[in-house]
C-alpha cells in the first residue's frame, strides 16, 4: 500500500516542476550564486589579506550541505511540505485519493517523498558549495587548503553535515504536516511553522553555544548548528564549538519529527472529510 502511494506521490511531485524548483532547487542555486558573488567580492577587495587567497573545498561543501539549516531559507522546503500536505485540502483531492489507499500509507508516503526530495536538494546544495570552491580555485586563482583528516573522516564529516541538515528540515516538515492536518489550509501550513521556527531561533540566539547545557539541544537551530560544528570538528577544525550538543541535538530533532508525524497521523486517521 505504502509503495503504491509513494509511487503516486513521486509522480505528482515530478510533474509539479515549478513548485519543486522553489521548494528544493532554489536553496542550492542560492548557495551557488551567493558563494560565487561573495568569493568574487572577497578576492577583488583591496583590504583582503594573504589568507583571502586560500580556499577550502571541503569546508565549502559543508557550507553547502548546511545551507538548509538557515532558518530563513527554510521557508522554501516548508512551502514544499505545505504543497504536499495541505495541497490535498486546497484542491479538495482527499476524496479522490483516500478510497484508493490507506490514510496512514498516504500520509507516510508524502513524508517519504518529501524526504527524498529534500535529500536530493541538500546533496545538490553540497555539490554547489564545492563548485564555489572550484570557481575560487580555477577562475580566481586561490590556493587550495586541504584538512589533515583522512578519507574516512572526510566521508564521515560530509555524512554528519548532510544528516544535520536533513534532520532539521524533516523536523520542520513534520511541523508543517501537523499544522496542515489541524488547519486544513495552505497559508497556515506555511506561515505558522515558519513563525514558530523564527521564534525558536530568536530564543536560541540568547544561548551561548560553548557553555550551553543539554536542554539547549531541544532548539532545532542549536541542534542543527551543533551537528554542523561536529562535522567541522571531524575535519579537524580546532575552532568548532558546541560539539557536545550534536548527539543530543540529533536525538531531539528526531524526536520532534516522530512526535509531530505520529500526532498528525493519529489526527488524520479519524479526521472527518465532510469537506476538505
Amino acid at each position, binding site marked *: *500500500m505504502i509503495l*503504491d*502511494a509513494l*509511487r*503516486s506521490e513521486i*509522480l*505528482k511531485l515530478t*510533474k*509539479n516542476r*515549478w*513548485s519543486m524548483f522553489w521548494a528544493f532547487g532554489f536553496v542550492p542555486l542560492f548557495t551557488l550564486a551567493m558563494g560565487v558573488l561573495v568569493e568574487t567580492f572577497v578576492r577583488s577587495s583591496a583590504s583582503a589579506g594573504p589568507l583571502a587567497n586560500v580556499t577550502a573545498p571541503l569546508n565549502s561543501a559543508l557550507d553547502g550541505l548546511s545551507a538548509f539549516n538557515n532558518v530563513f531559507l527554510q521557508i522554501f522546503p516548508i512551502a514544499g511540505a505545505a504543497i504536499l500536505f495541505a*495541497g490535498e485540502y486546497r*484542491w*479538495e*483531492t*482527499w*476524496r*479522490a*485519493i*483516500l*478510497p*484508493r*489507499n*490507506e490514510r496512514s500509507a*498516504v500520509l507516510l508516503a508524502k513524508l517519504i517523498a518529501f524526504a527524498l526530495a529534500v535529500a536530493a536538494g541538500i546533496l545538490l546544495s553540497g555539490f554547489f558549495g564545492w563548485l564555489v570552491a572550484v570557481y575560487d580555485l580555477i577562475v580566481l586563482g586561490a590556493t587550495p587548503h586541504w584538512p589533515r583528516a583522512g578519507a574516512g573522516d572526510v566521508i564521515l564529516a560530509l555524512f554528519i553535515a548532510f544528516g544535520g541538515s536533513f534532520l532539521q528540515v524533516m523536523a520542520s516538515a513534520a511541523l508543517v504536516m501537523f499544522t496542515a492536518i489541524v488547519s486544513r489550509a495552505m497559508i497556515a501550513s506555511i506561515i505558522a511553522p515558519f513563525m514558530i521556527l523564527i521564534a525558536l531561533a530568536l530564543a536560541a540566539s540568547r544561548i551561548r553555544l560553548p557553555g550551553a547545557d543539554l536542554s539547549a539541544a531541544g532548539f532545532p537551530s542549536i541542534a542543527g548548528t551543533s551537528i554542523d560544528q561536529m562535522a567541522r570538528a571531524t575535519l579537524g577544525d580546532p575552532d568548532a564549538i558546541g560539539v557536545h550538543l550534536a548527539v543530543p541535538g540529533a536525538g531531539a530533532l528526531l524526536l520532534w519529527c516522530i512526535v509531530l508525524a505520529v500526532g498528525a497521523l493519529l489526527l488524520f486517521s*479519524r479526521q*472527518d*472529510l*465532510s469537506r*476538505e
Partner: protein
Amino acid sequence: MSAALETFGLGKSYGSGAGAVHALQALDLSIPRGGVYGILGPNGAGKSTLLRLALGLINPSRGTVRLLDAEKTDTAVLRRVGAMIEAPSLYPFLTAADMLRVFARMSGFAETGREAAVLERVGLTEAAHRRARTFSMGMRQRLALAAALLHRPELLILDEPTNGLDPAGIQEMRILIRDLVDRDGVTIILSSHLLDEVEKVCDRVAILDHGRLIAEGAVADLVGGHGLFYLDVSPVEAALAILGPRGKRHREGVAAEISREEAPALIRQLVAANIAVTEARWLAPTLEEIFLSRTGGDGT
C-alpha cells in the same frame, strides 16, 4: 440478496446539544447489486453525507455501513469501488493523462493503455495532454468519471454526475451510465436533484429528506402506484360535490384519488347525477410529483 450498500441505523451529526445538525438520522437502507440506484432529496437531505460515510471519508455518529457485503470498509473493499463525490477534485497542474496515472498508482492498479481507454470512453482523448486547470466544468466532470472508472470498479458511486454538463453531455452521461450497467455489469449508485434524469436512468430510488428515508422502491412501482383519475366533466362543482375529499380541480375537470376498481362505479355515479363526462383517463405522476409531495412540496 447480495447488497452493494447497506446501512443499519446510520446517523451523522455535526456539533452537539441544541445546535447539533443531524445530517443523517437512523437510516436503514439496502441497495441491491445490479442496476442503477438513485438517491433523491433536496439540498441538505443527507445524500452526500450518506455517500461520504459509505466511502469512509467521514465517521458515523451512530450505526454502521457495509459496502459490497464486506465486514468493514477498508482499502481492500474500497478499491472495488469507483467514486465521484460532489464537484470533481483534480490537481490543476497535472494533465488529464498524468492525473489518471497518479490515481492508478495510488490504487495499485497497473494496466497498459487503460488511461487512454477510459479517456476515450468519456470523450476526452483530444484533451489527454492538457492541464486540468484549463478544463471546463463539463470536462472536469468527465475526467473525474474517467478516474472513477480507471480500476474497473464493481460499484460506481456518483454524486450529481450531470452537474455542469450541457444537454448533449447529459444525454451522453445517461447513455454511458446505462452502458456501464448493461454491458459491464457495474452497479451504480447516483445522487441527483435532476428528477427527470433519475427517472430516465434509474431502476430503483430512495428519497431522503432531512436525513431520513421517506420512500424507497422501484421507479416503476413508485410512479405507477400513486395515479390520479382525471375526468373532464361539466358541471365541475357537481362532480366535486360527489367526490368529496377524494376530488380536486385539475385543468378543465377534476382529478380523483381513487383505486382502479372504483373507477367504473364513479363514472356511473356521475352519469346518474346528469354530469356530462367527455373524457376519463389515468394520470401517471412523474417522479418529480412524488418527490415534491413526499418532501412537503406541491406535487399537483
